[in-house]
């Protein structure tokens, strides 16, 4: 059984990969903004928690990063998704779909019983 933080990290990791896959290279702040926009307030308090996830993904080889200049002329580290990352993302998405489906079925089952 995974602990909640691990589940959270996993979810966040998928969000990061998805974001980068759609938007192309982004700095941490940009990724955080995007996730906030799509997920509502999920990240609004703890933007910092993004960074250990980014690092883990980079260590796994799903991301690469390099320093660059942001649109506002600030030095920032830009992350971009790698081939391995895209593969991992695809696998992860399939997994989520499957899980969603199962959960949905269970919820429906419950409804019938009641």
């Amino acid at each position, binding site marked *: 059984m995974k602990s909640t933080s691990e589940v959270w990290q996993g979810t966040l990791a998928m969000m990061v990969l998805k974001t980068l896959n759609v938007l192309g290279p982004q*700095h*941490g*702040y940009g990724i*955080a903004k995007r996730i906030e926009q799509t997920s509502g307030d999920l990240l*609004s*308090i*703890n*933007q*910092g*928690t993004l*960074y*250990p996830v980014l*690092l*883990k993904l*980079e*260590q*796994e*080889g799903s991301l690469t990063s390099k320093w660059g200049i*942001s649109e*506002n002329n*600030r*030095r*920032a*580290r830009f992350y971009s998704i790698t081939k*391995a990352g895209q593969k991992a993302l695809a696998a992860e998405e399939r997994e989520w779909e499957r899980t969603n489906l199962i959960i949905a079925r269970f919820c429906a089952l419950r409804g019938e019983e009641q």
Partner: protein
Amino acid sequence: MKRLVRLIDRLRFALFRHRGDTEMAEEFESHIRMQTDENIRAGMTPDAARRNAAIRFGAAESVKDKYRDQRGLPLLETIRRDCRFALRLLRKDLTFTVAAVTILAIGIGVNVAVFRVTNAVLFNGFRFVDNERLVYIANGYGCCVSWPDFEDWRSEAKSFEGMAVVQGQGGVSVVDKSGFAERYDAMRVSSDVFKLAGQKPILGRDFLPSDELTGAAPVTILRYSLWEQRFAKDPTIIGQTLSINGTSTTIIGVMPQGFSFPQNQDFWVPLVPTAEVRQRDRRNLWCVVGRLAEGVQIQTARAEMESIGRRLAQTYPATNRNQLPIVQTFSEFFVGANAAVIYGAMWGAVGIVLLIVCANLSNLVLARALGRSREIAVRIALGAGRWRVSRQLLIESMLVSVIGGVLGWWIAELGVRIYQVSDRSWRVLDYTIDYRTLIYLLAVSLATGMLFGIVPALRAAKLDVNITLKDGGRGLTSARAKRVSSLLVTTEVALAVVLLAGAGVMVRSLAKLYTADRGFNSADLLTMNLALPPNKYSAGRDYLSYFDRLQMGLQAVPGVEAAAIANSLPGLGVPRLEYELAGSPAVADKQRDTVLAYTIGPSYFHTLAAPIVAGREFSDSDRAAGLPVIIVNQRFVDKFWPGDSALDKHLRLFKGNQSGPWLTVIGVASNIAQNALTNEPDPLVYLPYSQNPLPTAWLFVRSRVPPETLTPLLRQAIHKLEPELSIGTTATMPQWFRTRFQEKNTIASMFLIFAAIALLLASIGLYAVVSHSVTQRSNEIGIRIAIGASNRDIRALVLQQALVPLAVGVTVGVMFSFVVNPLLKSELVHVSPTDPLTLMGVSVILILSATLGCWIPVRRAMRVDPVVALRHE
């Protein structure tokens, strides 16, 4: 793969965390700035914008911690913390640290030293030579090849890139342009020997095939050390000439520093196959060096050489019957079949030393953990995991071990140097340190730390916190811990006994070697090797006339009691000759049995003080023209004419296919150690020098004064008769024996040193346990004294602690010796591997030494002041 990448990345961060930290800080700061910028754009004041950005980023420190954990290796991090903590503790308890490190350094040091020696002797071989590809081929184990055989092998064998034949030549007289003569060792070689070994001269040129043709201008290549010492590294040496044994020889090259092949010679000359060398039955070349072709295994080469040998035996049955070539590796050829036994035993010995070290330290660390049990209990109570506590203790042990290993390195260096000096053999070996040694050192250090740390660490993990904290810091003093420590000491004692017993029989065997009855009196006997100059003496009667005059001249030297010549020293062999006893059926040529035939001058047995059993020994009246005579030894008589008189029996000897004259036995000599110093002598015969003259001889002189003082007078007398005669090895008989036993001596000394270390460590181990128990029980002892226990009672009480481990250890050790010692059998002479006297002796030595070690704590116990002891509570 992914995991590996991550691990490497993490390791990188763990090692260079500094850079990672600044980058992380910069990235976070940039994030917050961007949020601030946006907040300002949204209309906040700069202060509020910054605060809001920080809040939205979250608890920065906690994020940083998480980030760091993700980035580095948390395990590595804690290990680093543990190491630092351990170092602090070790510095605090300096007595323990110094003791432990010293013991470890000795244990690991001797191990690495033996590893390096073994590595050199068994695997590394010669320096600067491609040892893996070279094999040594001969018709026997250690020597003997004939030139025609070598030529056939070289032309027929396909498994080899090349073959070269080598032949040593000791005591060659060399005169350079200064006119000063000196004797050196030479090696006669085929011209491509250096190519096969994989080396080139650093100066001048290599030998060429044209150098080994008959009539080619004589050339030589020098060893670096000769060039350095004799010619002061003269860069213009190439082209200069030397007179080698009277032949003017041009120096054409100098080999690289440290290169010497295939033994310890000073220079090389081409081996020119003269008509004499080209005889197939003259197997007096040393060996053939073969370089295996690319990808050929030694088994393949062996099989091929064997089939070639069989073919040659069919073609030349007279000379090559039973003469199959033997292909050997470096260690098989140069170190001998016994090498594995000797060096294996040596390794076993240092392994035992290391085990004793481990047991010793295990006890020390256990005692230390005991003293710290309260601290450990508190840490566990405060929430430290038991695994964490064990790991901390284990890391401490490993740390001590690694420090010991580093110091052990220097001890090993010292050990190897001592071995190199004492091993004055003709081998020139590669003792340089390679990566294998370093890996071995590291592995041994870590394994040792693990081994002695594991028991205390596991015990600490089982610590009962409640009892410990209640009991006032004595949680580990359970009966169980005491049993563990007793068991460790028992093991130490047993191992020490095994090692002592092994060393004991080796030393006894060596002592027997020195004192063995060799059938003659070796005290006050001096020997010298003499060689007549070949340009002045060429015929048998010249040799004879010189040695006759010499014997007369020597009688006149004051202090000389008797003098004689012979063609061999005791312990050295001579060629075997075929023989035929008169009256026995005739046997075809080359199929007769052979016998060792020594050539000796008049009064040989008189000079050696060996009795003549029957008849007489050779005298001046046995002349070349007289009746051909022979002397046989007692073993010969026992074998062929048992119960009969040998006198006036007849036999004849064969040289090549030439039958000698019928010889009349005129005497029977007692059995003296002639061809070997360690075994019973073989049946052998003696021929008179007058009927078999040679230009070289060993001179034997029995002296009335200390033999060393006689040497200059003898030299004078010898040179007075012939100034150009060259005098080689000069030694007293005991000196000669020492040279012969050098290797056994070295090995026995090494075992003795290891055994002494083991004895010391086991005694210290016992001392430590008893001493510790006295400290622990000082209360009890105090009470006993207070209620009237006598000194004797106290002594008995304390010694009891030592008695059981000692008694059990010695018994088990002796039992193990019965199993282990027979492995040494091949190394032992005149002594049984389980010699009862030795086993008893070592048991007594160990018990005495251990009792001595216990005496200190016993005295301390007797001096316990009951008042102090009880107040202490």
